[in-house]
């Protein structure tokens, strides 16, 4: 069950990270559309909220929140390193 929380966090943070300038530039090289940004933001935050709710449902408020915050920071560090060491614009290259 805690793996589901992790999965939700990973997907949610992926959406949220794409709304930010640096990772988006790294991935797509085109400027994001405002509407897509909005969709990404809503999806990301709602996924994060769901994962928090699930974590609290599984482990109770105190433990669930501890685990959630811990996993959140770990996943974010992984994403930051991933974006830094990823080759530029992989999405564009693969589609061409």
């Amino acid at each position, binding site marked *: 069950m*805690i793996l589901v929380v992790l999965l939700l966090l990973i997907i949610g943070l992926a959406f949220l*990270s794409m709304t*930010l*300038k*640096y*990772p988006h530039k790294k991935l797509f090289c085109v400027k994001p559309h405002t509407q897509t940004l909005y969709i990404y933001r809503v999806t990301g935050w709602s996924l994060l909220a769901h994962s928090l709710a699930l974590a609290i449902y599984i482990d*109770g408020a*105190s*433990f669930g929140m*501890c*685990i959630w*915050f*811990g*996993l959140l*920071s*770990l996943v*974010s*560090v992984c*994403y*930051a*390193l991933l*974006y*830094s*060491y990823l080759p530029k614009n992989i999405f564009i290259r693969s589609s061409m």
Partner: protein
Amino acid sequence: MRKEKDIVAIKKNPLSTAFNIAKLLLVVVLAYFLAVGLSIIFSKLLMFFGVSKVNATMSALLLSFFFYALIIILIFAQKQFRKSMDALHTWSGLIFGWFLFFIFLTGSVGYFNKELDSYMEPKLAFCTKGFSQQELINIALKELKKIAPNSKKWQIYLPDSREDRLKIRYQVPSRSNFTGMKFNHKVSYITRVIDPKTGAIFRPREDGGGEVLYKMHFLLHYIPKKVGVFIVGVFSMSMFITLLSGIIIHTNIFKDYFTFRKNKNLRSWMDAHVLTGVVALPFYLMITYSGLVFFAFIYMPLISFANYENGVKELRKEALPKESKIFFQNESAPLTSICAISQKAEIFFESPVQEIRIVHPYDTSCIVQVKREDTVAAHNNMLDKLYFNGVNAEMLPTPNLNRPIMSELRKTVMGLHRAHFADTLLRWIFFFSSLLGTIMIATGLILWSKKRELKSRGSFSFRLVNALNIGTLIGLPASFGIYFLTNRLTPDTLLVKANLEINALFLTWFLSILFAFVRDSKKSWFVLAYLNGFIYFSLAILGLLTYNQYSVHSAFNLFFFFIAVAFTLMGHRIQKRINR
């Protein structure tokens, strides 16, 4: 730019340096008394609105640290608020950074203190698998009856997920006890480890091991305990202030949340510092604040005098009521089957039993206390314990301590810091979060010297900072490695073994600082990194040579191997960069 002028002025006149430092110290002390005054006013206000005396004083006590941090920030604030906070963040971070690194590293290692204890005593690694709980309880009881028939208290620690050994502990009367957590004990306890296969009893080390590493986190070493606690308090307060000022400087937390630009020298170090700082910010705030709350009675004793005549003692008595004492009846009575009690408790808990405490065995006043393995709440609550009558095995109602709500809050915050409740996953999460904190401090320190590298390369102060940086950031992990290595290489029969290990740790730390100071700073970076790699490699190999079935040991070997690889790669990278 004012800073540069100041530095020039300081260089010209050594007397003004002393004067400036004295001024700074005076300001900090005055701010402390101001914070105490504010908290007293706050508690009086709360009492005016009808809050009870204990709760008002306790909440003032808990909030006083916030007041202190706020006052310091306000004192150092100038017209350009952000800039002045930057200065505060930089200089308090630099002055306290190395010790904070030490405290964070020992703290993160301390989350595995029990595992380290069993790692550092390979002789006492007995496999308890294949024995049921009931069998283990019976073995322990038999030994207790044999070696401590007259003891007033017996404790049985059953193997759990963290520590795979069967331990017994019994009370003996004594005057002084130096190994206990508390500062004064009237009784002391003796701990023994039992090999369940042969039934032989072994004496575990009373000092050293993971416990010492863990205690260094809040007591330091070589100095009296109370002084250590006080110094650690000053450091954690500085950490708190540095964190808060850091938040003020870095307002766009979300904007570059995932940003880490590599290979850009200063920019990359900044990114790493900000990334590690932002990502686990709730953890850092929690851990520094709860660290302060731990010894709140020691750090802020003056607040209690406003509402209580006898000060801290009276407040402690009222805020932390103890369980009522069980009086010894001196009438012998049979002891019920402890196995039956543990089975009963297991059904009630729906989780295995971990600790059994028998108070006054073979007396009419005998009470058996049973604790479950995985706790249900962050604070050490009564929910995890069950009480039984030791004569007829009847379940007794759990005593209601009626702690005031603020003490409950304090206990919860303290419990979060200690993470005794954490299972394996949560323990690793805590460990990694505190490692991130260690990295944050390290990158911050490196950032300071990187920024001033070109301007003041030759100066003595810069060299000193650089040496302390290298000697602490890379030398401290090496000295931890040496600590484990001395443990493995010295014979167990040595009486001063624990002292030797600790001395080796601090000697290595000191020597690596000295080495970095004497040698060219760039070279000592990778030399010490390689040394780290070598030490941890040899630890892993030694672990393989003395292989046993104990799973904790192989986990440690694997972990050391990874650390060795990481440090070797790091050394290689630095070397390549310098030679280029």
